[in-house]
């Protein structure tokens, strides 16, 4: 395949940045998208140019590191996959592919296609945990009865890998699908009840302080989420938040 890549290049966080065109040829349709970028970077290094920086780690759709906005969609045009699971056969020979970093004020660009997603870490630190006695008297998790539907929904929410595609796709750069999933995975389980009130209040407060936008229920986040996290989690977070606000 012969392609033209339009890639966002930005030297550092303070650089203005710009889109740069890179023609690339002899790309196998069976390559992953990141392998294709590896090929490009090898060519750039051979030419003595700066390679394109992009986040990646596990390359099997689990870690949530890869974060590219490809042809106007988070993780590209395919559904329920991360960028590392995207293959070049998705594109046509001769196509121009636009590659950009996640765009959100709360996710500032560090370099090229790499953004700072520590805002998510700070939201998690604010309440995305439970207190468990690990001093030797730990209760077997299976000893606590949990409704099957709740267990399934909590597990589904917990599959969020925190990649940030929800924020990137949302026209308002809202983080509510991420926070909704993190609130839901504990709110649905008995183990999460102890800190339930503080958790949702603190996580939402941190989310707002980070500068994410307000959800307007477009549903783009749900469509683009590589793990299929449902909008139900946002509705649950809204309910949890209102309950907690009334208590507090």
């Amino acid at each position, binding site marked *: 395949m012969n392609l033209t890549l339009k890639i966002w290049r930005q030297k550092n966080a303070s650089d203005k940045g710009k889109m740069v065109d890179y023609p690339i040829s002899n790309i196998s349709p069976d390559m992953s998208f990141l392998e294709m970028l590896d090929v490009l970077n090898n060519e750039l290094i051979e030419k003595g140019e700066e390679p394109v920086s992009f986040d990646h780690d596990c390359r099997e759709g689990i870690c949530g590191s890869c974060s590219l906005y490809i042809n106007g969609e988070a993780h590209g045009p395919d559904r329920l996959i991360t960028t590392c699971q995207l293959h070049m056969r998705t594109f046509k020979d001769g196509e121009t592919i636009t590659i950009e970093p996640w765009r959100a004020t709360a996710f500032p660009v560090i370099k090229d296609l790499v953004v700072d997603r520590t805002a998510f870490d700070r939201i998690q630190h604010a309440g995305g945990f439970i207190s468990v006695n690990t001093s030797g008297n730990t209760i077997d998790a299976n000893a606590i009865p949990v409704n099957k539907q709740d267990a399934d929904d909590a597990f589904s929410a917990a599959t969020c890998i925190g990649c940030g595609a929800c924020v990137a796709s949302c026209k308002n750069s809202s983080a509510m699908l991420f926070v909704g999933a993190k609130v839901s995975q504990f709110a649905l389980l008995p183990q999460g009840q102890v800190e339930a009130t503080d958790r949702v209040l603190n996580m*939402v407060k941190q989310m707002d302080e980070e500068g994410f936008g307000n959800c307007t229920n477009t549903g783009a986040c749900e469509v683009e989420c590589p793990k299929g996290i449902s*909008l139900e989690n946002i509705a649950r977070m809204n309910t949890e938040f209102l309950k907690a606000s009334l208590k507090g």
Partner: protein
Amino acid sequence: MSGILNSSIGRKFAMALSALFLMIFILQHFAINILSVISPDAFNEASHFMGTFWAVQYLLQPVLIIGVIFHFVMGFVLEIKNNKARAISYAKNNGAANSSWMSRNMIWSGGFILVFLVIHFIDFWIPEINTKYIVGDMSGTLPSGEFRYHEELVHKFKDLWRVALYCVGFVFLALHLLHGFNSAFQSVGANNKYTKGLKGFSKVYAIGVPAGFIFIAVFHFLNH
């Protein structure tokens, strides 16, 4: 409880509540207006009741005005905040791949509805307030002794430009409701086994009610 409106979810909840209130009002408005087609006498009676009953005039009307102003102001405030959340736009963004046009353009459909509402207030509400509270005529009748409401309504829809304007206004209302109806329920935390049915009902409401208003305007224009 304090500061709930300072949170993103609190603002969203308040926006949804004002939307649900306005949707109930629109349905009630439609129910009375359709009487103008079915029975002019019934329309006159209903209009006179709504225009003179103290609870409607001094309780519901102020709440409605506050609700309308709140919904518009909050809508614009949220839009400004949301724009700040993405200071740099994408060079290429395929919004149509993951969301409806209506959901992405609520501010535009809302803006057009605001323009329509200003015209509607100038057409009907301001003259009504003038007659009742400035001139002091609470009789609701013409010099002939007949009720004036149906006559005034029909008279407004004799002009093609006004009918066309109202039709465009209601199309924007339909576009706004096609996303807004369901969105309001999601915002108040209602996403459950009833959501699918609610989505179906929201389409019926969002298309049916504005289409009904268009029918009323066109009906009176054609009957001139």
